[in-house]
């Protein structure tokens, strides 16, 4: 793990990761009840990237996500109740039930939207970043996407334009080496992803996506540069997806990731690493952890209770918002 300095608030980073972890575990545990009737793409194992990047953002900065965005949404401060309710298809969900897990938004928190078409939000982030520049605001926009998305033409078109206009957009590539069940080597030649971003003219950082301190450090530098007018930045973080591509279960049985074992996962667990650091550098005791666990657990449970108590959306309203007033 990267060493912690005074710019890093590790307890806050850990708290952010723990919220994502516990929220998604609760989703996974209850999914078999078949009440969350939409596809869910869990980011467990990858929490450090969302938490480490978003720790460097202000409320006025905006974040765009993709199909696997529970973590991005929560790390940016998205409302947990509204996310769980959305997955349950409730009227109180962040999209009123229209979107489900794959379409999340929390405008007041600066989470500007997630959609599941791969690459769909990347140019939107560039547009948002350009708007900041045109309005002479010092905000940045951030977009999270996967290694698979790096293959989409739209990403390269967006990077080109962002570099051309020096747009304050941070491109965050969560490289988990997989697109669904297809490994990176079957989709891209052996060469560096970030090298291509560099050739597009972006500032480039690469790091261990399972090390929240390293992520936070690198993202801090990238955000500062983008904010000070140095143009778009590209962060590539290697990480590991624990669950199946979609759904609430491990998929070791499919055999496409031969190295996949519980041990392999835990060796890469971003939370476990932070725990060690909190004990050693911050003198955290069992009690400190227990208190945080207790709080997070209560918050997550409350979100589920909120969803259960929430009304179903009225089918009569299903066509509302097809057009703006």
């Amino acid at each position, binding site marked *: 793990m990267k060493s912690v300095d005074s710019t890093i608030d590790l307890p806050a980073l850990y708290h952010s990761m723990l919220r994502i972890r516990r929220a998604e575990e609760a989703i996974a545990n209850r999914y078999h009840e078949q009440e969350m009737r939409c596809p869910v793409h869990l980011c467990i194992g990858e929490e450090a990237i969302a938490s480490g990047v978003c720790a460097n953002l202000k409320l006025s900065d905006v974040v765009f996500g993709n199909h696997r965005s529970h973590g991005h949404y929560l790390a940016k401060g998205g409302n947990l109740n509204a996310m769980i309710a959305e997955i349950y298809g409730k009227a109180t969900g962040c999209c009123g*039930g229209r*979107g489900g897990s794959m379409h999340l938004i929390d405008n007041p928190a600066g989470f500007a939207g997630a959609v599941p078409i791969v690459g769909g939000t990347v140019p939107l982030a560039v547009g948002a970043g350009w708007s900041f520049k045109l309005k002479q605001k010092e905000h940045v926009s951030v977009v999270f996407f996967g290694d698979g998305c790096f*293959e989409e033409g739209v990403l390269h078109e967006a990077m080109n334009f962002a570099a051309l206009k020096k747009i304050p957009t941070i491109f965050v590539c969560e490289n988990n080496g997989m697109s669904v069940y297809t490994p990176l080597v079957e989709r891209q030649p052996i060469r560096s992803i970030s090298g291509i971003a560099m050739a597009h003219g972006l500032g480039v950082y690469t790091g261990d996506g399972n090390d929240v301190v390293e992520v936070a450090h690198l993202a801090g530098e990238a955000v500062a540069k983008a904010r000070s007018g140095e143009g778009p930045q590209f962060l590539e973080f290697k990480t590991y997806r624990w669950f199946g591509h979609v759904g609430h279960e491990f998929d070791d049985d499919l055999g496409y990731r031969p190295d996949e074992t519980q041990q392999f996962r835990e060796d890469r667990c971003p939370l476990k690493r932070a725990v060690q650091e909190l004990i050693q550098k911050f003198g955290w005791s069992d009690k400190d952890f227990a208190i945080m666990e207790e709080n997070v657990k209560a918050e997550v449970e409350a979100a589920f209770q909120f969803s259960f108590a929430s009304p179903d*959306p009225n089918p009569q309203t*299903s066509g509302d918002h097809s057009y703006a007033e």
Partner: protein
Amino acid sequence: MPSSTMDNKNLKTDMRELNFGEALQEAQQQIMERDKSVMVIGEGVADPKSIFRTTEGLVEQFGPDRVTEMPLAENGMTGVCIGLAMSGFRPILVHQRIDFALLSLDQLINNAAKLHYVFNGQVTVPLVVRMLIGRGWGQGPQHAQSLQSLFAHIPGLKVVMPTTPYDAKGMLISAIEDNNPVMFIEHRWLYHLKGDVPKDLYRVPLDKANVVKKGKHITVVTYSHMTIEAIAAAQVLAEYGVEVEIIDMRTVRPIDIAPVLASVKNTGLLLVLDTGWASCGVSGEIMARTVENAFQHLKKPPKRITLPDHPAPTSRHLADEYYPDAETIVQGVLSLVDEEQKLPAQEMYERVRRTSLRDIPNPAYVGPF
């Protein structure tokens, strides 16, 4: 290409039950054994789930050069497949959701559909694009669209939407052998349905509608999954003396209107069913052609049943009402054949009403989506 009648002779002896997905797998496997120029390309075609098992075993049998995983690059890879098709191959490009094919519209519409024409017949594009409509289990607005009319608008493309396992296999084989780009659209809610499928290779034409059920009171024109709903509706209607003629279009470009005109001549009433939206859609085209050519036989203005004119919501509480089904069809039929309301409509609705959850094709269905 051998004529379909020749090839389809003696098939009856070798029938057995397959589901729609298995029929697709078999079509690709059998034609790849025969024709080395046929390739399968797509995200997931060689992965452990093999596009809901429709490409199962192909990479093992034919190797990764002919059954190829692809980068997430729908537009570029569509162009690559067009290039292959211009160069002696017959690629089958597969999209797990039709929504992903939207990224490739430039290549499909500007190149695939135009090259044979603009180059004065010197180039052909024998490309098949398999695309799945992924309705169900909260797929929502970007993963469940029924976009056939978008493709059907384009001269130069063929667009087919088979309903039965028999047609799935026979039409996929015809599509692969066809020298034009064929958009092969598969409804996910058909995948588990079983039917008799010949063991051998056979062909079903890409330009012929199929009269599924004879009837004298009303013509119901349908295709893809709505055919299944229409059959369920017609069974109940028949018990109350309403005889529905059901025509499964199978192909939405070109549209085979002749059997519709012939049927309307007998029934005088037309109800068109669609899996998509109404505006500028396939149902409107069928109605327009009927009105243009058989206006004098229509006793009443034709009607259609389509999706409501807005995107598909995710929450099942919203989506349940979004999709028309057998009950909606019974309503539609009665509104045309029973204006005096002599039949016990409520009783009939109850007979066809689904009692199980409506965001899965049937209670036994275990997905995945």
